[in-house]
C-alpha cells in the first residue's frame, strides 16, 4: 500500500480536490482582490447540501443514481450561500478599506460553521456520508477507490468547462476584462457587479462539487471541515499563483502530492522519525506555503503584478 506510485496517486486525488476549492479563491481574488475566507465554509455547506439530498431520496436508491442529484444539491446550496454572502456581506464593503471585508469574511465563516453545527440535525459531530460500493480497482500496483475516480473526473470536467467558459463565452471574456481593470470594464458596458457575482457563483459551484468528492473520499462531512480544507485550498491558490485558474489546479496538485509524500516519507529521513504521520501533515503544508512565498511569491504560474494603489 505504501509504495511510491500509490502515494503519488493519493496525492493527486487529494490535490484535485484542493484544486477544485482553490478555483473559488483564485477567481474571486483575481477580480476583486478579496480573500473570501468564508469559501471553506461554502464548501462545507455544499457537503451538507449533498447529504440532505441523499437522506431525502427513497431508501435503497442506487448511489450511481444518487450522486448526480447530490451534486445538484451541493451545487445549489453552495451557490446560493455564496451569492448571498457576496450580495449582503461583501458588496456593501466594495470600497471599504481592505481590512473590512477580511474581517467580515471571518465573521461569516464562523457564523456559517455555527449555523450548521447548531441547526443541522446531529451535526455537532461528523455525519456519515454514503460510500460507493464499487471498487477498489487495481491499476498496476495502485489501488483506486470509486471516490478517487469521481474526484479526478470532476476535476478534469470542471477545468475543461471553466477554460471553455472563460475563453469562449461573452461572460467569460467580460470576466477577464473585469479582472484586468474593473473601471475600464465598466466603462465598456460590462456589468461588473454581475461579473463579480458570477465569479462567486462559479467558485461556489466548484466548491460544492469538491464537497461531494470530499464526502466520497473520507466517508463523512463535518461542520468544521471547511476551515482546514479552505486553508489548504488557499495555500494551493497562492502556490499556483493567485488569480490564475490553471495555477489553482496545479497548486492543488502540487500541494496534495507534497502533503501526501511528506506524511509518508518524512519519517524516513534520519533524525526526523518523529515528524512523519498525518498529525504533522498540515505543518508541512504550511511550511511549503512559507517557502513558496519566500522564493517565488508570485506562485508557480503567476506573474508579478504591481500593487494597485
Amino acid at each position, binding site marked *: 500500500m505504501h509504495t511510491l506510485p500509490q502515494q503519488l496517486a493519493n496525492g493527486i486525488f487529494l490535490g484535485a480536490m484542493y484544486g477544485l476549492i482553490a478555483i473559488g479563491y483564485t477567481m474571486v481574488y483575481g477580480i476583486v482582490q478579496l480573500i473570501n475566507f468564508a469559501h471553506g465554509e461554502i464548501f462545507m455547506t455544499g457537503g451538507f447540501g449533498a447529504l440532505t439530498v441523499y437522506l431525502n431520496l427513497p431508501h435503497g436508491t442506487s448511489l450511481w443514481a444518487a450522486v448526480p442529484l447530490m451534486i445538484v444539491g451541493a451545487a445549489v446550496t453552495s451557490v446560493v450561500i455564496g451569492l448571498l454572502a457576496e450580495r449582503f456581506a461583501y458588496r456593501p464593503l466594495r470600497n471599504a478599506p481592505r481590512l473590512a471585508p477580511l474581517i467580515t469574511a471571518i465573521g461569516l465563516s464562523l457564523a456559517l*460553521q455555527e449555523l450548521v453545527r447548531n441547526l443541522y440535525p446531529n451535526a455537532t459531530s461528523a455525519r456519515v456520508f454514503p460510500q460507493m460500493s464499487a471498487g477498489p480497482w487495481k491499476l498496476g500496483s495502485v489501488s483506486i477507490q470509486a471516490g478517487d475516480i469521481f474526484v479526478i473526473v470532476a476535476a478534469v470536467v470542471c477545468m475543461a468547462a471553466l477554460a471553455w467558459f472563460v475563453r469562449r463565452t461573452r461572460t467569460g471574456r467580460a470576466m477577464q476584462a473585469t479582472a484586468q481593470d474593473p473601471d475600464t470594464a465598466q466603462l465598456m458596458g460590462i456589468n461588473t457587479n454581475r461579473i463579480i457575482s458570477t465569479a462567486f457563483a462559479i467558485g461556489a459551484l466548484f466548491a460544492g462539487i469538491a464537497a461531494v468528492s470530499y464526502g466520497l473520499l473520507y466517508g463523512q462531512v463535518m461542520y468544521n471541515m471547511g476551515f482546514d480544507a479552505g486553508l489548504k485550498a488557499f495555500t494551493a491558490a497562492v502556490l499556483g499563483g493567485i488569480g490564475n485558474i490553471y495555477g489553482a489546479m496545479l497548486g492543488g496538485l502540487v500541494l496534495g502530492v507534497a502533503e501526501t509524500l511528506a506524511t509518508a516519507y518524512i519519517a524516513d529521513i534520519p533524525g526526523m522519525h518523529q515528524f512523519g504521520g498525518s498529525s504533522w501533515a*498540515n505543518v508541512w503544508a504550511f511550511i511549503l506555503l512559507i517557502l513558496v*512565498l519566500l522564493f517565488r511569491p508570485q506562485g508557480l504560474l503567476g506573474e508579478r503584478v504591481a500593487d494597485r494603489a
Partner: protein
Amino acid sequence: MTDTDITPGTPDVPVEATTARTEPAGPRPLLPLPLTAARALTLAGAVATAASAWLSWTWTSAFPGDLTVTGYPGGLQWETFAAGLLTALFALSGYGVRGLRWLTPADPHGATLLAALGGLATTWYTVIAIATELGGLANLTTGGWIAAVASLLAVLGALALPPTGIGGGLPRRGDPDARPDADSGAGANAVQRALAALRGYLGRRPAPRPAAPAPIAVHYLVILAVVALGLGVFTYGIDANYGELFVGYLLTTCFALWAAQRAGLLTRFAELNNRHRAWTTTLAFLAAVAFPLTQSNDHDANVGVNILIFATVALGLNIVVGLTGLLDLGYVAFLGVGAYAAALVSGSPYSPVHGTAFPFWAAALVGAAAALVFGVLIGAPTLRLRGDYLAIVTLGFGEIFRIAVQNLDGTSGPDVTNGPNGIPQIPDLSIFGFNLGNPHTIGSITLGRFANYYLLMVIATVIVIAVFSRAADSRIGRAWVAIREDETAALAMGINGFRVKLTAFALGAALAGLAGTVSAHVTYNVVPDPYQFAGPVAPNSAFLLAAVVLGGMGTIGGPILGAALLYLIPEKLQFLQNYRLLAFGLALVLIMRFRPEGIIANRRRQLEFHEPDDAPGPVATPGTAIGTTTDPGEATGPASAQAGA
C-alpha cells in the same frame, strides 16, 4: 464626490425653509401631538417608569432578583429605574429647565428618545422574561403592567417631540418644499416617512454648544465623577450574577451611552479629557487599582485578571492590526509561545526542563523574547508581500503552533510540551519575596490570590499602554499609520516599509508573549486548547481580532473595552452556550457593515470609513444637510423626497 456642493439640483428651495432649525418651523415629529402634550407625556412616562421600579412586578420570587417587593427595587428594576431617571433628566434638560441644560448640549430630543428606548428595552425585556420563564402573563402584577405601559408612553412622548438633530423629521404642512403627497400617508411611503422622521432623532447630530467656562477644579471634579461612575457601572456589570440581569445591564448601558453620545456629553467629556489627560489617566489607573477592593469575593477578581490579560494581548494586536494595518490571524499563538516558554522555565515538576525555575523577571523576558523570535520568523518572509498573504500565513502559523504543541509530547514528536495534557502545576509567582498565591491583608482589606495577580496585570497593562502610546506617537508610529493608510505613498516618502512592518509585528508578538507569561501562572497550567483560531471562549485569535475591531482599531480604550465586553458576554450569558460563536460571527459582519470604526472611533479612521456622508457640510441646516447625502446610488427614498422638488 464631495459634500461641499450645496444641492445644485434644488436651487428653488426657499432659504427660510432650509434655515429652520427647531420649533416652531422645524421638521415635524413622527407623532402629531402638540409640543406641550408631548413634553408632558414624555416626562410623565419617564417618571412613571422610574417610579414603577418601586412596585412589585411579579407574584413569586421565582424570577431571579426578587421583583416582588413593593417599596424597593430589586435586580432588573434598578436598571429600569436608572433608565427612567435618565429619560426624565434629558426631557427636563430639553425643556430648558435651569440647571439641567448642560446635560444636552447637542441634541436634547434625540437623547431623550434614546434614553426612553433604553427604558423600554430593559422593562419589556424584564416583563417578557417574567412571562416566558414563569409561564404566562398571569405572573405579572399590576406593577409590571404599569412599568411596561409607562416605558412605552415615554417612548411615544419622545417621538412626539420635534427632532433636534440635523435633517430628517417630516416637512411641515404648507412647506413649499414639501412634496404634495408627503402628508397624505400613502401606504408605500409610510415606512419611508417614518424612517425620515427617525433620522431627525438618530441621524446626524449637531455639534454640541461650546461649554461654558468653568474653573479648573470643576473640570477635575467632573472627570473624577465620570471615572467613579464608570467604575461603578463596570463593577455592577461584573457583579451581575444571573443572565437576565446582565442582559438588562447591557441594554440599559448601551442605550444610555448612545443617549449620552447623542446629547453631546461624550464629546464634551472627550474635550475635557484632552485638556486634562494626565488627570484622567491617573484617575483611570486608580480606578483600575481600586477595582479588587470593591469586590467581596476572589471570583470577580479572577474575571478581572482574565479581562486584563485578554486586553493586554488585544492591545498588542492593535499595534499590528490597528496601527500598521497588518491582519494577523494567528496572534494567539504568540500568547501561547509566551505561556509555554514561561511554563517551561517555571519550575513545574511536569516541565520537560524541570529543575529550572527562573525568577519572574527572567521568565517574562524569556516569554517575550521567544514570542519575538517567532514573530520575526513568521514576519520576515511574508511582510515583503501584499498584506493578504500575511493574513493567511499567520493563520497557518497559528495552526502550526497548535498542532506542534499537541504533537510535541514525546511519542509523535520530541517531548517539549506534554502534548494535549499540557504543563500543569505551575507554581505561583513570587516577586521580592511576595508570594502572589497567598492572600494578603492590607489594612482591613484582604487581597486574594486573583486580586494579587490582578494588580500585577494592572502594572503589565500600564506598561503595555505606555509602550503602545509612546510608540504610536513616535516617528515609527507615524510610519506605521502611513503604511496603513497607503503603503505605496509611504514607501515613496522614504519609509523602509519592510523594517517598519517587521518592527510592528515583532513588538506586537513580544507584548503578547509577555502577557502569556503571566497568564501561565494565573491559570496554573498551560494546555493547547485555548490557542486556536476560533473557540467559544476568549482568548483565541478570532476573539482577539474582534476585541480590537469592536472596540476601535488604533485606539487604546477600544481594545480594552472590546476585551472586557467579549470576555464578560460569554461569561455571563451561559444560556447562549451553543450560539455564542454564531452570534459573534454575525456581530462581526454587522459591525463591519454599519460601524467599521468600532465603538471608540479613532478620529482618522472614522473619516476614512465615512468619508462621503459624515464630514461636516458647509451649512449645517436641515435642508442642505439632506442635499449633502452625496452618493448617487444612496440618495434615494427619504432624502430625495425632500430634496428633489
